[in-house]
């Protein structure tokens, strides 16, 4: 096991311990709610990080995948009365298929082209949902659109935790979300270490050499895109089930910005970057709310621009370079010799 892997494992165990201890420390339901939100952000950001940080695919359509998972879960519950526990995995698989269609259309291109097309796909999805006014079913006297329209869906079922745990259901939901987060991180780690992971990292670092070694750029990147969609869609479904509502708001540019900001501040291409970024930004968000909620988006935009310019490797990159400077030079040389053999 390499040094980096040991580091990831130790950090993962610390996170596990912190997540397990949190419900006993956090006294208010509000704090727990914010942590749940931060974990949702961290899950989506980690999959964006897998895609951009490790595979170099610059997708701005991540929230479209999240929304697809959320909407599919909500619609299966709403129209077909499916249990959330069945609807969520089905929706996640559906999200993978949806992402493969988007990927087939967009991933033949590279760099900025991919970013623009995926952004346009997300925007079209948003517009089609918001402008949907045709009645699909009548619910009492009110008309309901197939996609839920500008209002979205509510009351399509829940996780069943309310019935079992009564007042403490938030803690149970927290446990489920935390479990999904850890599962996502384990999955991301496994993907990065797999042959596929080596292939897409090679493509990111030197596309010319990678292609010359026989790696197919299109199919490799399509595979990562599909892989990242599963947990993004599952997180969308769990988000809908936890809040018992989903609306077109998740497709807004500011939500996408928040996800990207989390990845940038934490550290693009760092496994635990999204978690660190999510914690920092949710705290910053709370602080900005104290100052005045109006300045929230303004502050967020400035944070993204400043973080990108001043610390492109994020907080984790900053800490890593500081640690590297503190370690004695002889140790560094030994490490170099070891890794060279």
């Amino acid at each position, binding site marked *: 096991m390499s040094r980096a892997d040991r580091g990831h494992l130790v950090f993962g165990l610390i996170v596990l311990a912190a997540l397990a201890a949190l419900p006993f420390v956090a006294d208010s339901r509000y704090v727990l709610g914010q942590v749940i939100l931060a974990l949702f952000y961290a899950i989506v950001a980690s999959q964006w990080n897998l895609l951009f940080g490790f595979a170099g695919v610059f997708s701005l359509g991540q929230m479209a995948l999240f929304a697809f998972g959320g909407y599919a879960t909500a619609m299966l519950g709403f129209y077909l009365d499916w249990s959330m526990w069945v609807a969520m995995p089905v929706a996640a698989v559906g999200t993978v298929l949806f992402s493969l269609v988007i990927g087939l259309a967009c991933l033949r291109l590279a760099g900025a082209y991919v970013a623009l097309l995926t952004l346009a796909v997300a925007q079209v999805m948003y517009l089609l949902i918001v402008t949907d006014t045709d009645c699909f079913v009548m619910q009492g006297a009110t008309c309901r659109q197939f996609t839920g329209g500008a209002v979205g869906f509510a009351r399509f079922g829940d996780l069943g935790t309310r019935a079992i745990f009564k007042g403490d259901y938030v803690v149970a939901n927290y446990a489920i979300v935390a479990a999904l987060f850890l599962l996502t991180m384990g999955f991301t780690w496994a993907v990065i270490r797999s042959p596929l992971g080596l292939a897409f990292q090679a493509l990111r670092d030197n596309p010319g050499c990678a292609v010359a070694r026989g790696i197919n750029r299109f199919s490799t990147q399509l595979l990562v895109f599909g892989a990242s969609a599963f947990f993004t869609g599952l997180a969308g479904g769990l988000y809908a089930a936890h809040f018992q509502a989903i609306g077109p708001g998740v497709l807004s540019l500011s939500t996408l910005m928040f996800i990207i900001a989390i990845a940038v501040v934490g550290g693009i291409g760092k496994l635990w970057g999204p978690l660190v970024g999510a914690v920092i930004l949710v705290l910053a968000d709370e602080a900005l709310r104290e100052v005045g909620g109006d300045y929230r*988006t303004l502050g967020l935009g400035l944070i*993204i621009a400043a973080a990108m*310019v001043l610390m492109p490797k994020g907080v984790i990159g900053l800490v890593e370079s500081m640690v590297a400077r503190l370690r004695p030079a002889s140790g560094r040389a030994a490490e170099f010799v070891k890794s060279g053999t």
Partner: protein
Amino acid sequence: MEILGPVLVAGITTGALYALATIGLSLVWGALGMLNMAHGALLTIGGYAAFTLATLMGAPWPVAVLAPVVVGALIGAVIYLLVAQPLLARAPRSFETNVIIATFGVAMALENAVLLIFGGQPFGQSIALTGHLQAGGIFIPWQNVLIVAVVLVLMAGTAFFLARTRAGRAIRATAQHREAAQLLGVPVGRVYLQVLALSGGIAGTCGLLVSSITQLSPTLGADPMLKAFIMCVVAGLGNLPGAIGAAFVLALIEAFASYALGARWGFPLLLAIVILVLIWRPDGLFGRAAVRRL
């Protein structure tokens, strides 16, 4: 025929506006390889700058018309100095993607600043012509005629600037080959600054024109920018004449699709066409595949 006329007028007018928006984007992409996501915010600020001077401060219209140009150029220059230059200096290889994220942040901050200063309610742009021109049974508002005329003049001016002036030649040389231009004594940093200022000025003017036929709102520039991006992509990023052609053709298609299928299907159809074109030609209709040495 009665229907065809207005749809045609709307298509050509929006086509002209998209074309103007694509000029600024293409210039910056061509010279720096930078997608300026804050371009839409520059449009918005241009519209509000004219509104502030003309309506709130009562300045005469020639002054108010110049305001978007100046403000847009200034903000464009600041974006270069504070965001693009440091990113380019630090990591030229990852500049293409890093700058998208950074300018995305700038766009969000600028748009929100407009919202905080002016509020979310829409305003009417007072700098606009009234009345109609009647030609062969078709009513054409004078404002639409003015927009197309202004866009044509600006396009001709930009083309002349790029083709004939010393600064324009420096821009084209930098776009063609940065190192070679630098070796021949072109001050690349100053060229980049000029390009972003020029693009910002054009964006400001475009914002004024867009607001004159719609309404001023903090999200004014977002929709034209996304569509202008799409048009640049379909023509091949950085290809100016191609982008202008694509802007007119796609705007007409969008106008007819909106009329025939309903307004909500205009943009989706546009995107479908663009994706089909890109599957057929991944570097855009007129783009040449970039050959890179390893």
